[in-house]
């Protein structure tokens, strides 16, 4: 008797979604077992996450606060991943967006709000885009693997950030903390009263979702992106300019990550410090992939993940667990989806 593995001809959409749900549930079950071993009551932990993220008014607004950067980043990554180009540099692109925005806010603070705020978004977008431009250029001109360069660019961006907040931009009245001075009032994004939701960035994120949907499903460029991602040889044969597609998708994802950076410094912290992003750029990769690279799926995944992050903060307070605990879910959900994905793509038969 032997096992035969064959690639499925048709992958049923409903089955893919079903398998994803089963995978997430299995991951939650596996994590509950880990929690039991660690002397943590899993039911209480899960209830705390759920309650903190979705069942209180404050929690729900905080979930939306985290949804803003995650949605912007993962929408961008969705486009670039569709072209089978692996930008894992969203973290660095976010940081560069935050750094340049900080410069604008601290140096051009004399401008009225209606000029400086669009300027902050614009400069953040350009900064993120430029940071993505370097690896794209290296990939196209020198065939350098973008996974490694985009990743290196993250580490370099983090160091540039540290240079500024520990060095020339450090607030002289900041009690020696590595952070810049606060942004002037007119360089702060408008906020929904009683919450931390900077709604202009939220609207940008939602508009992005719609625009990218149109771009990918209703335009020739979207079609070309899908061909490049599906079969690069076919794309070349069809005369599609592959370099152009790689550039374009990298620029979109870099720019959107930059916008996420604008939101974090301009709408949440009102200053630059080394903890601008708790790894949003990496979480965005997980979300884009979890959402099946389509706008609705990514939006839902981003919302659920935002809740998970808020729940992680709550675990820290309510059960004195380290904040990093939440990463157990990040990792295990992906493992189970990757493993179960095998059964959607291949069929396995026992034969005599």
């Amino acid at each position: 008797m032997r096992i035969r593995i064959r690639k499925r001809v048709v992958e049923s959409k409903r089955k893919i979604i079903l398998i994803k749900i089963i995978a997430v549930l299995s991951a939650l079950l596996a994590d509950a077992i880990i929690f039991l071993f660690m002397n943590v009551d899993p039911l209480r932990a899960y209830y705390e996450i759920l309650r903190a993220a979705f069942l209180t008014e404050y929690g729900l607004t905080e979930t939306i606060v985290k949804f803003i950067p995650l949605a912007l980043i993962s929408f961008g990554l969705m486009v670039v991943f569709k072209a089978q180009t692996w930008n894992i540099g969203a973290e660095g692109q976010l940081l560069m967006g935050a750094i340049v925005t900080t410069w604008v806010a601290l140096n051009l603070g004399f401008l009225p709000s209606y000029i400086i705020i669009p300027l902050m978004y614009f400069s953040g977008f350009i900064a993120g885009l430029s940071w993505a431009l370097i690896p794209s250029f290296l990939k196209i001109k020198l065939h350098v693997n973008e996974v490694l360069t985009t990743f290196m660019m993250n580490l370099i961006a983090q160091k540039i950030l540290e240079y500024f907040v520990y060095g020339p931009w450090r607030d002289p009245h900041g009690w020696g903390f590595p952070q810049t001075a606060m942004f002037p009032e007119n360089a702060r994004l408008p906020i929904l009263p009683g919450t931390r939701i900077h709604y202009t960035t939220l609207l940008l994120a939602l508009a992005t979702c719609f625009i990218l949907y149109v771009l990918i499903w209703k335009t020739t460029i979207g079609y070309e992106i899908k061909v490049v991602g599906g079969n690069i040889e076919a794309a070349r044969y069809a005369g599609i300019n592959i370099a152009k597609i790689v550039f374009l998708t990298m620029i979109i994802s870099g720019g959107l990550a930059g916008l996420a950076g604008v939101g974090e410094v301009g709408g949440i912290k009102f200053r630059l410090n080394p903890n601008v992003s708790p790894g949003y750029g990496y979480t965005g990769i997980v979300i884009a992939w979890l959402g099946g690279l389509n706008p609705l799926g990514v939006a839902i995944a981003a919302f659920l993940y935002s809740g998970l992050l808020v729940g992680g903060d709550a675990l820290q307070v309510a059960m004195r667990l380290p904040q990093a605990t939440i990463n157990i879910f990040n990792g295990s959900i992906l493992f189970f989806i990757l493993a179960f994905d095998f059964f959607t793509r291949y069929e396995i038969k026992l034969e005599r």
Partner: protein
Amino acid sequence: MNEWISIIRTIIEAGTPLLIGTLGQIAIERTGILNLGAEGIMIMGAVTGFAFARITGNPWIGLVAAILIGIFFALIHGVISISFNGNQTISGLALTMFGIGLSGLIGRNYIGIPVKHIPRIPLFPLDKIPILGQILFNTNPLVYLSFLLVLIYWFILYKTKIGIIVRAVGDSPETAESMGISVTKVKYLGTIIGGALIGLSGAYLSLIYIPAWIEGMTAGRGWIIVSLTVFAMWDPIYAVFGSYLFGGVEVMQYILQPYGIPPAFLSMSPYIVTILVLCIASRESIKKRLGAPKTLGKPYIREK
């Protein structure tokens, strides 16, 4: 003079976890598996090593435990990459996140408590060699182990049939398979060796270099291993230079700070150099002569 001996020795001791981890990463990636999970494996090694050393009172048992947990964690990535043909980029990132999360949970009761650590043990009579003896042979046992590992790696990779098999699997699994080699077996073997060494490099931090458990104590060293492996072009000898260079940067940023050199500039230089190396190494003519596994990150799908 003595001050310089001590600085150089510190650099080697700072570079050793990077070296051991990079050797592990080479074992995995030479067989064609891209491993972005090094940070997760390393931090699990650090916390497990510490926990077992603390419970048993014996740091050597801690090292063994770290090796075992490293193997187990690498195998999660291995099963997804090798048997399930899963996306290796995503699986590696998942491993890193999972490791950071789980280590935080396991380590929450070990923060700020002492542990019996592994001291420097002079290697008689080599430590009596003037200058060099103090630098190379009056240090901790894992530094000696790393020297030995480099020699073993170099010998196996370039002087034995096993080396040819491993390189064939990473470069052209179809050819390897037609030669009667089990690609799956070789990939799993590379994964096991790599996981063991990366796990060990984590315990080096918590039982020798620091020694304590601090949440997130690997502080990106796993990612440095990923870049160092590229920097070293998957070669054990280059890995030695790369590790001590990065270790040197880690030590020198604190030494040079009083002279007005911002530590951030110095600590970003290895990444810039790595990108430059990548640019040079990606040229087709050079690529052929270097060790980059040609199928890195691509699943080997055998449909029969």
